[in-house]
């Protein structure tokens, strides 16, 4: 009897304990849902942001996510932008001193290690040169300058001062781009022999930027900083002498990818473009460019088009095409694609899939062949990798890590110069309507 009771007590107690464990395991697991980006508070590198326009705002969002970096000063010639930035940072608990003039900032901020420059292109060279000479490391947005001479002076100052100068071609630090270049294009030789590249940025027609009338800058101040009027100040990208037009504004990022991934600059460029839609701009509003690259395996031609007079249909991408396959890359992951010919058997899909480099896309219906010359339908795969930071953050992180000496810059000014040189040449080709040859020597700063 005693034994029987003990056994039942034991079983009963075990049941209660089991139920308790079951309930414990059923508690909502919230830790996985609380992934978030921590705003910086205690930092070790003091940095100033010069230029708080559209690009400056994007860079600020990334800056605030980076640990051990403290934003101490903000500079913009427009008090409307300065106030907006200060109020925003105040809300985040990040008090900054603000300046209208960057030279004033440099004179008063004695504990700076670096500056981030996001001003109109024509200010990049003078600001960068002054900041480098002041002993600061510089992250400068692309284009380096609206002129080749201006860009060259930046490289020279970088060399003279020994300070770091990172140019904001942020895709060079984008983990997806780095992975696809290293693992698929180089390691797996996914495309085979590269024969063609295609890139585009179709941006929808949009109105010029406006401004609140009560915050309009006085004419003398606009003139002091190089602008004819407020419209020119707000829409500087469209004006010669201030910016470089759409090839410089949008195309620079993508043509830089052509050069980076192909490992060289082109040997020639032809282009066509025009100011066909907008009436109040200087720069053409559409352009189509063809570069020739003399790759060791043979010539590859790269076509690039930038449209600001169309719908945004088709989006923006860079597509590398070879005799074995094609990789279509974009900063927008939804546009990316990967294709491989059935006869390309050097590396199997299975092998790449096992490594986690690609993932099969499940398809149900077979596509109908509409023409006998069509190649057979390819197996569909995608590149499943991603990163969970704003697009500019890895490039800024690379800059700050280079300052700490833990890595090298992903886009130092001398490399960026070579890449941007051929963009300036594309603008020249549009104007001259002639094929322009580009030597390896002239792309060196």
């Amino acid at each position, binding site marked *: 009897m005693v034994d029987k009771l003990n056994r*039942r007590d034991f079983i009963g107690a075990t049941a209660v304990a089991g139920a308790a464990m079951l309930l414990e395991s059923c508690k909502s697991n919230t830790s996985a849902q609380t992934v978030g980006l921590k705003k910086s508070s205690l930092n070790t590198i003091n940095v100033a942001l010069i230029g708080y326009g559209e690009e400056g705002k994007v860079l600020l969002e990334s800056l605030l996510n980076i640990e051990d970096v403290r934003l101490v000063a903000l500079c913009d010639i427009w008090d409307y932008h300065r106030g907006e930035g200060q109020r925003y940072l105040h809300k985040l608990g990040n008090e900054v001193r603000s300046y209208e003039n960057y030279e004033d900032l440099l004179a008063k901020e004695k504990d700076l290690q670096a500056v981030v420059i996001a001003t109109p292109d024509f200010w990049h060279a003078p600001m960068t040169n002054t900041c480098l000479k002041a002993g600061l490391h510089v992250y400068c947005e692309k284009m380096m300058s609206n002129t080749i001479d201006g860009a060259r002076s930046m490289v020279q100052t970088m060399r003279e001062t020994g300070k770091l100068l990172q140019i904001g071609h942020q895709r060079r630090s984008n983990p997806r781009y780095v992975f696809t270049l290293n693992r698929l294009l180089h390691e797996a030789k996914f495309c085979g022999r590269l024969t063609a590249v295609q890139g585009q940025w179709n941006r929808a027609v949009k109105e010029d930027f406006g401004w609140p009338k009560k915050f309009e800058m006085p004419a003398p101040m606009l003139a002091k900083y190089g602008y004819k009027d407020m419209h020119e100040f707000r829409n500087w990208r469209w004006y010669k002498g201030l910016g470089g037009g759409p090839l410089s504004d949008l195309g620079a990022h993508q043509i830089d990818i052509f050069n980076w991934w192909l490992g060289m600059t082109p040997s020639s460029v032809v282009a066509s473009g025009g100011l066909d839609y907008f009436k109040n701009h200087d720069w053409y509003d559409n352009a189509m460019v063809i570069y020739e690259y003399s790759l060791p395996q043979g010539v590859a031609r790269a076509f690039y088009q930038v449209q600001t007079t169309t719908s945004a249909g088709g989006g923006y991408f860079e597509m590398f095409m070879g005799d074995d396959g094609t990789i279509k890359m974009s900063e927008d992951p939804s546009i990316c694609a990967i294709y491989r010919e059935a006869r390309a058997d050097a590396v199997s899909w299975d092998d790449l899939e096992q490594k986690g480099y690609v993932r099969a896309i499940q398809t149900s219906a077979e596509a109908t062949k509409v023409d006998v010359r069509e190649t057979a339908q390819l197996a569909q795969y995608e590149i499943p990798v991603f*990163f969970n930071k704003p697009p500019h953050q890895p490039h800024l992180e690379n800059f700050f890590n280079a300052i700490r000496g833990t890595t090298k810059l992903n886009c130092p000014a001398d490399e960026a110069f070579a890449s941007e040189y051929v963009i300036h040449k594309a603008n020249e080709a549009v104007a001259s309507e002639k094929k322009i040859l580009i030597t390896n020597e002239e792309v060196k700063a």
Partner: protein
Amino acid sequence: MATTTEVKILPVKKIAWDFTFAFLALRLWLGVRALFVGIQKYAAYKSVAVPLIDPSTGQPDASGVLVNVSVKSYALANYMGIPAGLRDKFAHDPLFPKFALTLFDRMLGPAFILTGIMLIIGLGTRLSLLIQGLLFIALTVGLVLIDANDGVAYLGIHIGLVAAAFLLVQHNRFVVLKRW
């Protein structure tokens, strides 16, 4: 009158151990089956970002890219009595009352867990077998309405096991409570 001193020896009731263990095996199988069917209703797969591992070094890929891996987790918030696909079909069937769908959805998981535990520990064995039998019948009605005949046959096997358990339940031993 002579009084008898004869002592009648009653036959000793022998324990049929074969039947006992047969029922024990069946009881435990049905119990474990029900318990984990119920627990699974609190399970969900979530996508979790992890660094891509470089197969040559076993370390995260130098590019810093991430990949999504599917991770299973259990939480009360995950509870789904009737799978979403089936629930939609039931909701569109005119013979299936909406209140019954909600009620059944809420009670299915807890009912399986409760009756599963009861069967395993031997607490109200007949009652828990009866509840499970009714649940299987109710599920059968639902699956018949949506023409899921494979599922009906599958539930038929379960009903057969419950019926077999009732035939053997007189040999029920190793229990917390013998009654019910």
